C-alpha cells in the first residue's frame, strides 16, 4: 500500500521544491532572460548600496570624519539619537520623556500576551496615557513643558496609543448602533461612519485643528486635544466597520443563549458577543494599528514634532551634517519597518494560538 502511494508521487524531474524553483527561473528562454536581467539589476543596485553603506562609509568619529568620505555617515545616528527619538523636548527634563517611552512600550508589550488580557491591562491603557501626559507636561512639578515642545518617539506612541484606545470607546457603540433594530439609531451610525470614512485623514486633522475652533470662537483648544479628537473619530469609523463584521460573524444562537439565560443586552454584549467578535477580527485590528502608526507622521502638518519630523529636523542640519538625509530616513524607515513587521508576525502567532486553544 505504502509502496504504491510512494510510486504515485515519485518525484519526476522538476517537481521537487528546488527543481520547481529552478524551472520557474530558467524554464523557458523568456524566463531565463528575465531572470538574468533581474539578477544584473539586483547586482548593480546591491553593489551601489554596499559601496555606500559599507565600503565608502564613515564608521567612527564625528561630523568632521564624515566630510572626508562619500558614503554613509553612520556616526550621524549615534550623535543625533536624542534629537531623533525625543525631538525638541528640553534636555534637562529628558528623563521624563525616557520614562514615558519606556512606560508606553511596556504596556504595549504586556498587551501582546493573551494571558495578560483583563481588567488590569485595560486600566493600564487608560492610566498610562494619563500618567505620560502628566509626566511630559510636568504640571505637577515646578518646571512645566508645553505640549508644543513634546516630540519624537514618545509623542508618536502617545498619540498612537490614545487614538487606538479611544477609538474602541467610540467604535463599539457605533458598531452596535449600526446593527440596532432601531432605524433612527442605525441611520445615524451609518451616516457618521460613512461621512468620516469618506474624508482623508489629513482633512479630518485640518477640520479639527482649524475649522472647529473657528466655529467655536473664544474656545481655546489644545493642539494635542484636537489631534487626538480627529484621530479617534477617524480610526473609530474604520474600527466600527471591522467590529460590525466581527459581530456579524457570530451565530445568532450566541445572543439568543445569552438572552435566554437572563443576561441584559449590555451584559450579553460585554461577556458573550464582544470577546468573540474581537477574537474574530484580530488580524484586522493589528492592520488598523499598523496603519494608524504609519499615519502618525501626518500630525506634523498641523505642527507636531512626531518621530519622523524629529528625524527630518536632525537631517536638516546641513552645515554640520551635510548629505545625511539618506542615513536619517533609512533609519526612520528601519524603525517603522521593525515595529510593523513585528506586529504582523505577532498577529499571525496570535491567530494560531487562539485557534489551537479552541477559542474560536
Amino acid at each position, binding site marked *: 500500500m505504502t509502496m504504491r502511494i510512494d510510486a504515485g508521487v515519485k518525484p519526476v524531474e522538476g517537481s521537487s521544491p528546488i527543481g520547481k524553483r529552478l524551472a520557474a527561473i530558467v524554464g523557458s528562454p523568456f524566463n531565463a532572460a528575465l531572470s538574468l536581467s533581474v539578477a544584473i539589476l539586483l547586482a548593480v543596485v546591491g553593489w551601489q548600496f554596499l559601496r555606500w553603506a559599507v565600503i565608502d562609509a564613515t564608521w567612527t568619529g564625528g561630523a568632521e570624519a564624515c566630510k572626508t568620505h562619500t558614503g554613509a555617515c553612520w556616526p550621524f545616528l549615534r550623535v543625533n539619537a536624542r534629537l531623533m527619538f525625543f525631538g525638541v523636548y528640553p534636555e534637562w527634563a529628558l528623563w521624563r520623556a525616557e520614562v514615558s517611552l519606556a512606560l508606553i512600550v511596556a504596556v504595549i508589550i504586556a498587551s501582546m500576551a493573551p494571558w495578560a488580557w483583563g481588567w488590569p491591562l485595560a486600566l493600564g491603557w487608560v492610566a498610562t496615557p494619563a500618567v505620560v501626559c502628566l509626566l511630559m507636561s510636568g504640571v505637577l512639578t515646578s518646571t512645566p513643558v508645553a505640549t508644543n515642545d513634546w516630540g519624537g518617539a514618545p509623542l508618536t506612541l502617545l498619540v498612537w496609543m490614545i487614538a487606538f484606545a479611544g477609538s474602541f470607546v467610540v467604535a463599539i457603540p457605533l458598531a452596535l448602533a449600526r446593527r440596532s433594530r432601531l432605524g433612527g439609531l442605525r441611520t445615524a451610525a451609518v451616516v457618521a461612519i460613512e461621512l468620516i470614512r469618506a474624508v482623508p485623514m489629513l482633512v479630518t486633522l485640518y477640520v479639527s485643528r482649524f475649522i472647529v475652533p473657528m466655529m467655536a470662537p473664544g474656545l481655546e483648544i489644545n493642539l494635542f486635544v484636537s489631534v487626538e479628537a480627529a484621530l479617534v473619530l477617524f480610526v473609530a469609523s474604520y474600527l466600527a466597520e471591522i467590529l460590525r463584521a466581527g459581530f456579524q460573524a457570530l451565530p445568532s*444562537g450566541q445572543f439568543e443563549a445569552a438572552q435566554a*439565560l*437572563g443576561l441584559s443586552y449590555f451584559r450579553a454584549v460585554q*461577556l458573550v458577543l464582544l470577546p468573540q467578535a474581537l*477574537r474574530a477580527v484580530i488580524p484586522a485590528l493589528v492592520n488598523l494599528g499598523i496603519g494608524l502608526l504609519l499615519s502618525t507622521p501626518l500630525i506634523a502638518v498641523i505642527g507636531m514634532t512626531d518621530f519622523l519630523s524629529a528625524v527630518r529636523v536632525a537631517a536638516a542640519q546641513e552645515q554640520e551634517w551635510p548629505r545625511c538625509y539618506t542615513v536619517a530616513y533609512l533609519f526612520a524607515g528601519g524603525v517603522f519597518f521593525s515595529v510593523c513587521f513585528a506586529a504582523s508576525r505577532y498577529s499571525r502567532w496570535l491567530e494560531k494560538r487562539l485557534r489551537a486553544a*479552541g477559542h474560536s
Partner: protein
Amino acid sequence: MGHTIHPSYQRPAVEFVGVHKWYGGFHVLKDIHLHVGAGERVVVCGPSGSGKSTLIRCVNRLEEHQRGVLRVHGVELTSSPVQNGRVRQDVGMVFQQFNLFPHLTVLQNCTLAPIWARKLPRGEAEAQALALLEKVRIADQAHKYPGELSGGQQQRVAIARALGTNPKVMLFDEPTSALDPEMVKEVLDTMTALAADGMTMIVVTHEMGFARRVADRVVFMDCGEIVEVDAPDAFFTAPRHERARQFLGQLLH
C-alpha cells in the same frame, strides 16, 4: 384540549390564551390555547414549519407574540425588558445547536448567568455549577472548552448551564436533532432524570420513545395550529386527526 391543565397538576406554569404571532404576513401561530401545569412534561411535535419552535421561543420571549396572553407562573409577558429578564431566569432553554459560549470554559459557561444575572458570589456560583455538572455527569470536563467536547457532552453542559438560573420551567428545542445517533441516548437520559426530579418541561422533539416514556401529554401542531393534545398512549395508538395520523405514519417509515 389544551384549554385546561392536566388533571394531575394543580398550579399552571405556562399559560397560552389565544396567542397569535405573525412574521410579516405569515401567520405562524394561530389562536394557541395551552395550559402547562407546574411539574408537567409536555412534548410538542409536528412537521417542520408547523410553528412548534416558535411556540416555545415565545415562552422566554426570544420571539414576541402579537395577540393573546402568555403567562409564566402568573407573570404576563409584555415588552418590558425588566420583566422579561425576570421571566427568563425562571425559564431555562436548551437549543438544537447547543449554543455554548466557545470562548469560555465549561465551568465559565455555567457560572456566567449565576454571577451576572443572579448576582451570586463567584465561589458560590462555581460550587453550584460544579454540582449541576455532576448531575449531568460531566464535572470532570469542567475546565475544558466546548470545542473539545463531543456533541452529546456539549448538550449536557448546555442543560447544566440552563439549570444554573434555578429555572421553574425548562424548554427544549429539538435537543437531540443535531447529535450523532450514538449520543442521543446520553442526552435523553439526562432529560429523563430531570423529569424525574419534577421539573416542568416543554420539549420539542421527534424522539417518540422519549415522549412515550416521559410525557404527560403530547401536543401535535400543524400549520401554526395546535391540532391535537392527548396522553402519549392515546396519541400514538389512536390519533384522532388525519394530519396526526399522516405525521406519525411518516415518522415510522
